[in-house]
């Protein structure tokens, strides 16, 4: 048990010492996290809205695919992306393998079905009379969509948080296509895995705590938003 306490002490010391490596890893993780969340939600939320509201041929099959993709192992996504981005792969010319962009692309692919499936569920949870009412008052397609989204805004905010949490917590894809290169593609999760395997428990724990802190901050922000919204419902 001593090593746990020692690790925790070291973690706290590292957190408050402003260690450049720890800081760099955290910043890279945040950069990738925000970018991948932005892209995944920019595509996934409208896709989820369409899946929930627009009847089209193959809609049920599309929903099944999206829901299945929720359970896609991250390491398998990493493996497939590795094949695509490797020199012999179709996107090998981009030379993205072992770059932070490759990690971000993998995270987008992982978060996309989450954003789409949960957004579809959030929109389906909105009273259908809201949509009909907006339409009968003269709203066009986009304004109707905006009105429905406004009603589901807390659920949609939770979708964004979930996507962000999934992205910053995943390791399989980041390790496979990022390579865990120090100062370039080392994220919080890949660093935790590396330092744990090297026996540097304190540093691993410090990074783990930062990861938890990030998740906590995002959730607190959401709670504050929801609290404010409920008083203005």
């Amino acid at each position, binding site marked *: 048990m001593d090593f746990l306490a020692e690790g925790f002490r070291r973690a706290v010391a590292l957190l408050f010492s402003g260690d450049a490596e720890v800081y760099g890893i955290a910043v890279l993780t945040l950069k990738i996290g925000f970018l991948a969340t932005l892209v995944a939600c920019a595509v996934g939320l409208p896709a989820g809205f369409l899946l929930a509201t627009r009847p089209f041929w193959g809609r049920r099959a599309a929903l099944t695919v999206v829901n299945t993709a929720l359970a896609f192992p991250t390491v398998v996504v990493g493996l497939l992306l590795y094949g695509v981005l490797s020199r012999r792969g179709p996107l090998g010319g981009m030379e993205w393998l072992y770059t932070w962009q490759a990690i971000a692309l993998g995270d987008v692919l992982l978060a996309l079905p989450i954003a789409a499936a949960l957004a579809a569920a959030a929109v389906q949870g909105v*009273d259908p*009379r*809201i949509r*009909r*009412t*907006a*339409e*009968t*008052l*003269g*709203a*066009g*397609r986009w*304004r109707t969509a905006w*009105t429905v989204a*406004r*009603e589901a805004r807390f659920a949609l905010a939770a979708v964004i948080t979930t996507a962000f949490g999934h992205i910053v917590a995943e390791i399989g894809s980041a390790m496979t296509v990022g390579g865990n290169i120090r100062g370039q593609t080392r994220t919080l999760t890949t660093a935790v895995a590396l330092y744990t395997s090297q026996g540097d428990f304190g540093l691993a724990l410090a990074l783990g705590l930062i990861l938890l802190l990030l998740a906590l901050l995002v959730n607190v922000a959401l709670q504050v938003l929801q609290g404010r919204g409920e008083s*203005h*419902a």
Partner: protein
Amino acid sequence: MLELVGVRHRYADRLVLDLDRFALPPGAAVAIVGPNGSGKSTLLRLLALLERPSEGEVRLDGAAVIGGRARTALRRRVTLVEQRPVLFRGTVRENLEFGLGLRRIRRTDVNRRVESVAARLAITALLGRRRHELSDGEVQRAAVARALVLEPDVLLLDEPTSSADRAAAQALYRTLAEERARRPLAVCLASHQLEDAYRWTDDVRALAEGRLAPVTPENLFRVELPAGGEDLKRVCVGSVEVAVTSDKTGPAILAVPATDIFVSREPLASSARNVFSGRVIRLSHQRPGVVHITADVGVELVAVVTEAAVRDLGLTPGGPVVFSFKASAVRVF
């Protein structure tokens, strides 16, 4: 003129509406009455273009409404208030401003219209409130105000007073009547309240099983006709058995024309196969010289007689009454 032409509408495989033609002339006030599940709400949603008919078309001023833009354009002239309306997030005032904002109405006009409609529907005090601070009746009034403020050509109302008390309901109908007197506004109203339908509209149409009934809308009953070779059948309606002449079997609608019911104080010897005793529930004077007698005779029935007949028979609410009608007077469809 807003029309449904050759409309057959289905949910899954179930036919819920079957209308060769349903027209709503400009400035008309039409009531659609009928039992639950008769297709009233579906009819209004089709007229409001919130659903596309499985077959047939919606026409406005003779032209079929096809395509997304045409539908949105029509929706700016036709507004539906649903039976249990919802308000959007925000205040009642923001709800009233929603449609005006879409139409890019100037701010001063928005304020003028909102204040005017709110005053007429007595919801001025509610303008600053949010939906969770309102009763069902207040939500209903706010929803009607939200539609009226748009000054549509056609206003479709689905049971607009289902959550309102009598006074609020009368105030709403008076406001609609004033609005119709002020400008050309067609109103199509789905209601259970026959009395309101007759009082506030010019044309009452009955809907049964998704079809326009070929009789007046009182005394419509959904029944199961027994199999059997004889033409004279007895079917349970409420707690009484009604004798009908029909060779049909299975599900059907019975209609007892209100004008074919013979009204008396005591059972009389006659050829009528249906003689039911009961009590008068109410007497409604809906047209000059004509009285609608609603009575509980084991089932609620409406008979139409003259004012003189009511006077001669001494009929009063709560007093005894006997309704008689021939088996052949009962319409089956």
